[in-house]
């Protein structure tokens, strides 16, 4: 099963945590050493995550590198992890971005360096855990675990309104996810009562086709948790606050990975567990996604704070992700996953760039800049490439993702496609306008004349991103071939079970009747595993 012959996924998941524990024993005063050590840990983590990509079998649609041991036997909870083509690339994105985040924090984290690095590494374990967990409880635990470090990163190392932002972030996400917990429990007991097997194993729960009414309620509970995290309009209000107040690396990881956990949650849990409800929810989700795309873009255009602009552009970009996912065709879903990666890379890079400007000028107001391309030519080049990637210029990664999403959306419903496409135009407008105001024109502020161009550390941070932007834009098949089968399998499964639930009749003998706690009848259709 495992080509490496070693529980590599477990190692990838918990190595950062082990590193964090190791850092605990380093004296606080040795800041340089702490930074180097954290960097080495994150680099090693990235390196040991590479075999996942290399040894990943493209010919298998299901889970690979599976590790499984019982955790809480009494409840049928197991430590069950694995990756497929959908989560593989997101795991790599996480290990990749964490390295960059640690490099980018070199100067900007002035105090409590030790705690910062520890918290960051714990966050990495939490994020990877969410992406690989195949047991609902394990998933929920990791899901909540990511909250604590991010809360601390915003609250301790954030900007002036950090407390408000941190608390808002925590409460929004927590309030969203508790209802999911009830739905998880309800699903568990329903499944257990009918099949006799009480389990939180997602792969087994996939096979149950639930009664349609139940699906609606449970899907709503899951979707709320994920929609807040994504964030979809109208649950996005925590995001600008969190982004603006978070330190640069916090913003990068928030935009790069944490938001993806929401979209990933849809594709891994909400949709396959409740396919009927998901199909019925297509209009609602698509319209909310479109509102997100257009609203996010329009609000971005009006921002005078660079970080807020990037934050709102995230709302717009993630609208694309949701639109593609709910197109329910290969193009849409593949584009959606690709766009998750793109957004992680490009928006992560944008936050890094804004951070670099902020470190130099201690302001993020667009009006305080202007004409920077003259004093910072290297910076201007990097910035330009990232901006172009963000507005999806052909040849960059963004183009591939958005193109596929729009293709999928047009195929599913041309109206969605048309409205979605306006988002691309608006993105070009707000991004280029921002770029023009910051980089071109005359230098209006004397302080800007003395700005230093990028140093070696900063170039080292940005170069991998630029390489990735071009690579993903020019050779997308390198990445797509890893996810092809998993995506096709995902769509096939979801559609088959949708059909099964819609056409099932008692006469077919596939209907199992059970009594629920209130004595009313619960219908549960089971489908044979292929």
């Amino acid at each position, binding site marked *: 099963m495992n080509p490496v012959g070693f529980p590599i996924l477990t190692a990838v998941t918990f190595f950062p945590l082990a590193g964090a524990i190791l850092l605990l024993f380093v004296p606080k005063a040795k800041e340089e050493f702490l930074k180097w050590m954290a960097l080495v840990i994150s680099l090693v983590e990235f390196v040991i995550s590479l075999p996942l990509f290399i040894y990943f079998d493209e010919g298998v649609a299901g889970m690979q590198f599976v590790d499984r041991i019982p955790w809480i036997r009494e409840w049928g909870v197991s430590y069950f992890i694995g990756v497929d083509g959908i989560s593989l690339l997101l795991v790599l994105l996480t290990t990749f971005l964490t390295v960059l985040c640690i490099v980018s924090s070199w100067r900007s984290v002035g105090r409590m360096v030790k705690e910062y690095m520890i918290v960051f590494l714990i966050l990495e374990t939490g994020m990877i855990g969410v992406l690989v967990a195949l047991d609902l409880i394990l998933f929920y635990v990791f899901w909540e675990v990511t909250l*604590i470090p991010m809360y601390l990163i915003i609250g*301790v190392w954030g900007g002036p309104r950090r407390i408000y932002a941190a608390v808002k972030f925590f409460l929004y996400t*927590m309030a969203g996810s508790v209802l999911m917990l*009830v739905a998880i429990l309800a699903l568990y*007991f329903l499944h257990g009562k009918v099949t006799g097997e009480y389990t939180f194993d997602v792969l087994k729960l996939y096979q149950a086709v639930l009664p349609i009414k139940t699906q609606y309620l449970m899907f709503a509970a899951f979707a709320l948790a994920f929609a807040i995290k994504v964030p979809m309009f109208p649950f996005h209000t925590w995001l600008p606050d969190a982004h603006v107040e978070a330190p640069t690396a916090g913003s990068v990881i928030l935009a790069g990975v944490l938001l993806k956990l929401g979209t990933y949650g849809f594709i891994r849990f909400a949709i396959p567990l409740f396919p009927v409800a998901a199909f019925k929810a297509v209009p609602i989700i698509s319209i909310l996604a479109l509102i997100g795309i257009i609203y996010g873009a329009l609000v971005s255009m009006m921002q005078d704070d660079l970080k807020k602009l990037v934050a709102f552009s995230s709302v717009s970009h993630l609208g694309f992700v949701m639109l593609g996912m709910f197109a329910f065709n290969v193009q849409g879903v593949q584009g959606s996953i690709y766009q998750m990666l793109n957004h992680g890379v490009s928006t992560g890079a944008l936050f890094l760039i804004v951070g670099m400007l902020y470190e130099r000028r201690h302001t993020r107001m667009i009006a305080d800049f202007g004409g920077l391309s003259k004093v910072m030519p290297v910076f201007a080049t990097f910035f330009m490439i990232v901006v172009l990637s963000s507005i999806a210029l052909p040849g960059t990664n963004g183009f591939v993702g958005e193109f596929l999403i729009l293709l999928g959306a047009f195929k599913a419903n041309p109206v969605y496609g048309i409205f979605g496409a306006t988002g691309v135009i608006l993105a070009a407008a707000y991004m280029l306008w921002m770029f023009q105001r910051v980089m071109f024109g005359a230098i209006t502020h004397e302080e800007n004349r003395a700005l230093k161009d990028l140093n070696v550390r900063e170039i080292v941070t940005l170069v991998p991103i630029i390489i990735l932007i071009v690579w993903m834009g020019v050779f997308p098949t390198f990445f797509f071939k890893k996810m092809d089968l998993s995506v096709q399998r995902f769509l096939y499964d979801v559609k088959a079970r949708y059909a099964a639930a819609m056409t099932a009749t008692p006469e077919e003998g596939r209907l199992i009747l059970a009594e*629920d706690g209130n004595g009313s009848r619960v219908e549960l259709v089971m489908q044979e595993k292929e």
Partner: protein
Amino acid sequence: MEIFQVQFSTADLLVIAPELVLTGFALLILLMSAFARGGRRGFLGYTALVGVVAALVSLYWVIGKEASAFSGMVQIDPFSFFFKVMIVIIALLTVLSSLGYTKREGIDFGEYYVLVLFASVGMMLMASGINLLIIFLGLEVMSISIYILAGLMRDDARSVEAAFKYFLLGAFASAFLLYGIALTYASTGTLDLGGIGGVLAERAWINGLPILITGLALLIVGFGFKIALVPFHMWTPDVYEGAPTSVTAFMATGVKAAGFAAFVRVFFYALPTLQIYWTEIMWVLAVATMTVGNIIALSQTNIKRMLAYSSIAHAGYILVAFVAGNELGQSSILFYLLAYVFMNIGAFTVVILLGKKGEENTLISDYAGLGLQHPLLAAAMAIFMFSLAGVPPMAGFMAKFYVFSAAVKAGYYWLAIIGVLNSAVAAYYYLRVLVYMYFRESEKELTIGGFSPAAVLSIIISVWGVLHLGILPSTFLALAQRSIQFFL
């Protein structure tokens, strides 16, 4: 007139071995304190520590035993065993936390430890009594000890007020309970829990159902007061705030655990036939307790009051499991209480360590900057707060998960939804402690007043408990499940 003859064998004594050990040590300390002069009272606390450890050891002999003693008055069974261990742990942690604190506050009298031990004996009797009178006696032994403990800081008006308030209201509550017992006796003709269960199962009550239901309601009031259910919770914040902090920790955990032990045993063992009558009442009480506790806690600025309201809310969560009433629900009550003990005593012990003589530092704003000044203490407090808020991977999460799964299994979806929403609300005020500890700069130097290794040990044990129950709960789940088997 019937003449009661007290007959017992040595086997009977074994059943109440931990109680006997604790009583013996309490008497010993009482005796020793008469000879201890002035400053040489330090060893009294250590004697109490030895006593508690001895009680823990004495529990070894009754592992897995099931026997009743003293003509069916008390019983050792997995259920009472579970609670006895829990109560000994509570007593142990309390004594550890008290060693430095009582000295600092000048209340290191022998009586302090004597009363803690006596109260523990009362709690154990509540957990092991299978006769309503024994349960009542246990409750009184516990309560009277705690009334005094609450007022032990004689020069502090708030402490005296707390004791007085608790005593007055507690006396009323005891009367309610006793009245409930009397009416139950009037309806069934027996005080034996098994006997009551038998009479009710045959629906052979005398004097009509209304008397019985009135008795049931009064029992709920009596127990509800001790475990601080809304609307019987009014005393809680004042008493928790005014009492010496170590006593508050003891009270918040021990009284609640013992109260629930008796509550569960009486209701699921003697009165399951009446479940249809009490389930709805409990549903309302659970919702009211969770919601009122959490909402009032939101606006508290004093950490002891905040924890008081939080303990009310936690009683509400436990009541959710009570309403569910299934096997899962009963065992989740035990598991929840165990988790609750560790996180609460831990939190109170941190509060203890941060105070000084004459300056308790119990405002949440006093904790500003703790994360920088005392990182380890702050980290422990953070673990307790996250656990109380129910964030994985802490014990509080597993406990809540267990409770709500019982509710969902029994079909009480709304109760579970109200419960989880409540725990989301609760996150806000627990986080506030973290906000002050980590996000705000300190305004004053926080010195640890009278650093006490024993209290640190108590915190370490609590952290271990919180993490172990949160990450590897299996052993404890199995234990909790075994402990309620004989109800079924």
